[in-house]
């Protein structure tokens, strides 16, 4: 029943795409499409929540679509339900936001048809139960998001972004196809049930590598992340929120489904590889984010960082599973899924905010913004909540999932393998470093864009945005607060999935007094987000009240002190590059080969002084540039084939025929 409803909602979303083509160019098209998407995704969401809470048995169905002898299998189990919730929560938020934001869209007929198809594609990937429908839905998702990235195709950077995206997406799908091929074994039965029942050989590590390439490139693992910071900013803001907040989670779902569900028990060194890639991705992602000036690119790189954190949790879980420690595996897995859920919440919120800023000011470059807290009060509060949440600060939700990840790392001395004993504390240090750098990154983002003085006329004249966008941001901000204060509910909701995939689950959290969470045992560690929130609120309120009562409460406004020499020009305040300069100097000299040079004119001359910073993206230079160079060189040489004479073409055909006959002769 639940599965049937879901499939009908997906079909309705696809039909909505067709409707958008029909209604193209009409005024009410935006409102109709987004409202319909909102209701459909809410329906999906409610359905999935009910299925998960009722702890219902998995439902499967086979539709007579697709390949005639296979059909299209679909399945709604606990894992699918959790990810349906994640996908549709983000999608509902984006649709609500789009009701307002979409009114400012310049070319709606390039966005509206693909948006519901994108939503349908993501939902169908989560519901798919055989390789063919999985890959078909995956391609729907990729192609519709590519079309959305290319919506504003007149800008050359968007075209470049679309090109890189389609290349990486196709490469990823190829890797997944090969992975499914390996998994389906000699019989070639692609249904997931059949794959589960085939006992996977221990030496199935190529599957891990292929899934890491396929799903990992979609999720944004370094070094396959290069498309993400190009493509996510190029799309319209609500689509960016979907791509960063939701599509990366669909990639995580693909990894979890294939490795944890279809793959059988992993080896310990699989966990080591995933863990190390996760840790490296987290630190690299946030360092890249600190070097960027474009609001959306910062958020895209920050997505890479958070995906790294999720994969650290997944790697730990694999390592624990390989060593038959199901409770620890459950903790690590819960931490990873919880972080994925939290990331959807706060990343969508932040992208909505970035969209609001770019609508209000027309600018995405932080160095042209400033002082928006005065002009856009609701947006700034919402973005502040998002920044505090993503920096993993109590009492919001980012801290709860990071805390669980750290607790999982603290269980790791039980792992006997030496490689793990060295790499787990090292990755713990990398994780802590990434968290601290993320806080710095979001102080910079909020401080430069929203605080301070406006740096351009556009920033001075910003105005608050429309009602629907504000509502969407407010809802997500409240959700961040609620999940941070009451994390036990989410952990218990994740318990059926964790039980199914790791063989154990965390102790029930909702029965613990005062809404604390106790991951292992009360004598070991516990955390209570609600109490921390209440304590801070009470202390702050009480202090404010007492101070205002007993001491003075008068305020006088005056020019800023600025050591006695306030400069009226807003250029003298810290810019985004200036804020990142100490960190760039400490970390960037190694990671990005940063070189800074200053040319100062001689005394007496009226010339300007110049400050020049040069950064190199080592991943691009060492991996992608040589490959694209080689492809270009090969293409240049093969181009000769375009210009041959008729005689030469006939010669080629003749040679091919002779070669085939020779092969036949030798091998028969």
């Amino acid at each position: 029943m639940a599965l049937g409803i879901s499939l009908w909602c997906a079909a309705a979303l696809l039909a909505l795409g067709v409707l958008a083509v029909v209604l193209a160019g009409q005024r009410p098209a935006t409102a109709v499409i987004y409202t319909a998407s909102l209701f459909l995704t809410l329906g999906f969401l409610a359905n999935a929540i009910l299925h998960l809470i009722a702890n219902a048995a998995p439902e499967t169905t086979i539709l007579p679509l697709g390949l005639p002898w296979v059909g299209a299998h679909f399945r709604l189990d606990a894992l699918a339900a959790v990810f349906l919730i994640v996908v549709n929560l983000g999608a509902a938020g984006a649709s609500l936001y789009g009701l307002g934001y979409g009114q400012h869209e310049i070319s709606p007929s390039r966005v509206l048809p693909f948006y519901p198809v994108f939503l349908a594609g993501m939902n169908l990937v989560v519901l798919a139960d055989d390789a063919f429908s999985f890959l078909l839905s995956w391609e729907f998702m990729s192609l519709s998001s590519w079309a959305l990235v290319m919506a504003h195709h007149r800008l050359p950077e968007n075209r470049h972004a679309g090109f890189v995206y389609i290349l990486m997406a196709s490469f990823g799908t190829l890797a997944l196809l090969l992975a499914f091929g390996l998994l389906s074994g000699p019989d070639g039965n692609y249904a997931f049930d059949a794959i589960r029942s085939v006992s996977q050989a221990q030496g199935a590590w190529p599957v891990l590598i292929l899934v890491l390439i396929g799903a990992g490139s979609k999720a944004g693992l370094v070094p396959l992340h290069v498309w993400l910071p190009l493509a996510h900013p190029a799309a319209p803001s609500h689509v960016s929120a979907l791509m960063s907040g939701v599509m990366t989670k669909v990639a995580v779902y693909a990894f979890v489904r294939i490795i944890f569900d279809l793959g059988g028990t992993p080896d310990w060194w699989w966990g080591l590889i995933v863990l190390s890639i996760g840790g490296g991705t987290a630190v690299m992602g946030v360092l890249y984010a600190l070097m960027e000036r474009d609001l959306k690119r910062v958020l895209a790189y920050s997505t890479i960082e958070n995906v790294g954190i999720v994969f650290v949790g997944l790697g730990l879980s694999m390592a624990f599973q390989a060593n038959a420690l199901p409770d620890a595996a459950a903790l690590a897995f819960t931490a990873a899924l919880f972080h994925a859920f939290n990331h959807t919440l706060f990343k969508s919120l932040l992208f909505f905010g970035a969209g609001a800023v770019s609508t209000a000011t027309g600018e995405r470059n932080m160095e042209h913004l400033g002082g928006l807290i005065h002009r856009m009060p609701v947006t700034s509060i919402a973005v502040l909540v998002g920044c505090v949440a993503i920096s993993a600060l109590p009492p919001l939700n980012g801290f709860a999932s990071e805390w669980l990840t750290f607790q999982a790392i603290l269980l790791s001395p039980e792992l006997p393998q030496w490689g793990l004993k060295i790499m787990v504390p090292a990755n713990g240090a990398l994780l802590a470093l990434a968290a601290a750098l993320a806080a710095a990154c979001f102080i910079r983002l909020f401080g430069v864009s929203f605080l301070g003085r406006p740096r351009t006329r556009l920033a001075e004249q910003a105005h608050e945005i429309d009602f629907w966008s504000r509502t969407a941001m407010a809802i997500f901000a409240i959700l961040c607060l609620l999940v941070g204060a009451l994390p036990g509910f989410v952990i218990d909701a994740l318990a059926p999935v964790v039980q199914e995939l790791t063989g154990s689950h965390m102790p029930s959290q909702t029965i613990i007094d005062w809404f604390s969470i106790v991951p292992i045992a009360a004598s070991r560690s516990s955390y209570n987000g609600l109490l921390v929130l209440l304590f801070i609120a009470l202390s702050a309120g009480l202090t404010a009240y007492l101070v205002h009562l007993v001491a003075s409460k008068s305020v006088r406004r005056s020019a800023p002190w600025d050591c006695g020499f306030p400069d009226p020009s807003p250029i003298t305040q810290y810019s985004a590059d200036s804020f990142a300069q100490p960190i760039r100097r400490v970390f960037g000299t190694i990671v990005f080969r940063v070189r800074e040079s200053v040319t100062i004119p001689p005394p007496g001359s009226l010339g300007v002084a110049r400050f020049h910073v040069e950064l190199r993206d080592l991943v691009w230079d060492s991996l992608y540039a040589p490959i694209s160079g080689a492809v270009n060189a090969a293409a240049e040489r093969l181009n000769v084939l375009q210009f041959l004479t008729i005689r030469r073409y006939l010669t080629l055909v003749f040679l091919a025929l002779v070669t085939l006959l020779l092969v036949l002769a030798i091998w028969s």
Partner: protein
Amino acid sequence: MVLIRELAAQGAQMMLVLLLAPLLTGLIRKVKARLLRRRGPPLIQPYRDLIRLMRKEAVLAVNASWLFRAVPYLVFAATWVAAALVPTFATDLLFSWSADLIAIIALLGSARFFLALAGMDVGTSFGGIGSSREAMIASLAEPAMIMIIFVLALIAGSTQLSIIAEFMLSLAAGLRVSLGLALIALILVAIAENSRIPVDNPATHLELTMVHEAMVLEYSGRHLALIELAASLKLLLYVSLIGCVFVPWGLAPMDSGWNAYVVGVLAYLAKLLCFGVALAIFETSIAKMRVFRVPAFLGAALMLGLLGALLRFVSGSL
């Protein structure tokens, strides 16, 4: 009865840390002055400063936002809640199960986040200097602190500070190498986080040498009083942390009576005296580092913490 006593103990701890924080700051200033052959301000001068600031009118820049006005209260509240959860005279605190050591450090991180935002709020270059340098220092001090927490948690079997303090009090830990490394790393991190010499000079008037002071340059009146009190509380928190983990003698263990509490308070006061004098001597005998040597300093703390954690992972008796 037990609940009343525990509630009273927790409340007493909260008031004790609040009252003692300015005294510690005053003690350090007095000892530093004496070491420099000055008479120095009286011990209670910080209290007088706070009262004076509270009574004054707060002068705000014309473009200061609501965030600027709210931050002092948030910073103070977060620091006070964190300080109330670090055992000073008794190991068990009624609410210690609500926030473990990771949460306490993250609360201090929240306070720092908001303070850095306040530095960026008015849009002056000095606020930017303070916030960006503070962000750099935090980006290395926090991972070092987390590694220290890992070492302590792996030794004591819990991240709950009360349980760690009980464990260290029972001397079940012994003299471990990883504990020694964690102690040194914690001292380095504490110096950096509290903006003491050699990382930052709390008494400087030169803006280009400031980190913490530059962030709060625009604050005045009661706002400044709350921020200064929060800074003193943070110093007290770190001293209490080092005291309850590495010098736990005198702490009243769980379920002990009022006598043990009195002994605990006296021992705590003695520890504050010793640490205050030691910090003053250390600060007087060493010069402030250039800002870009601080990453090497904190990098060393991070490496020591990582080494300590590694030793714990690798061998049970190290």
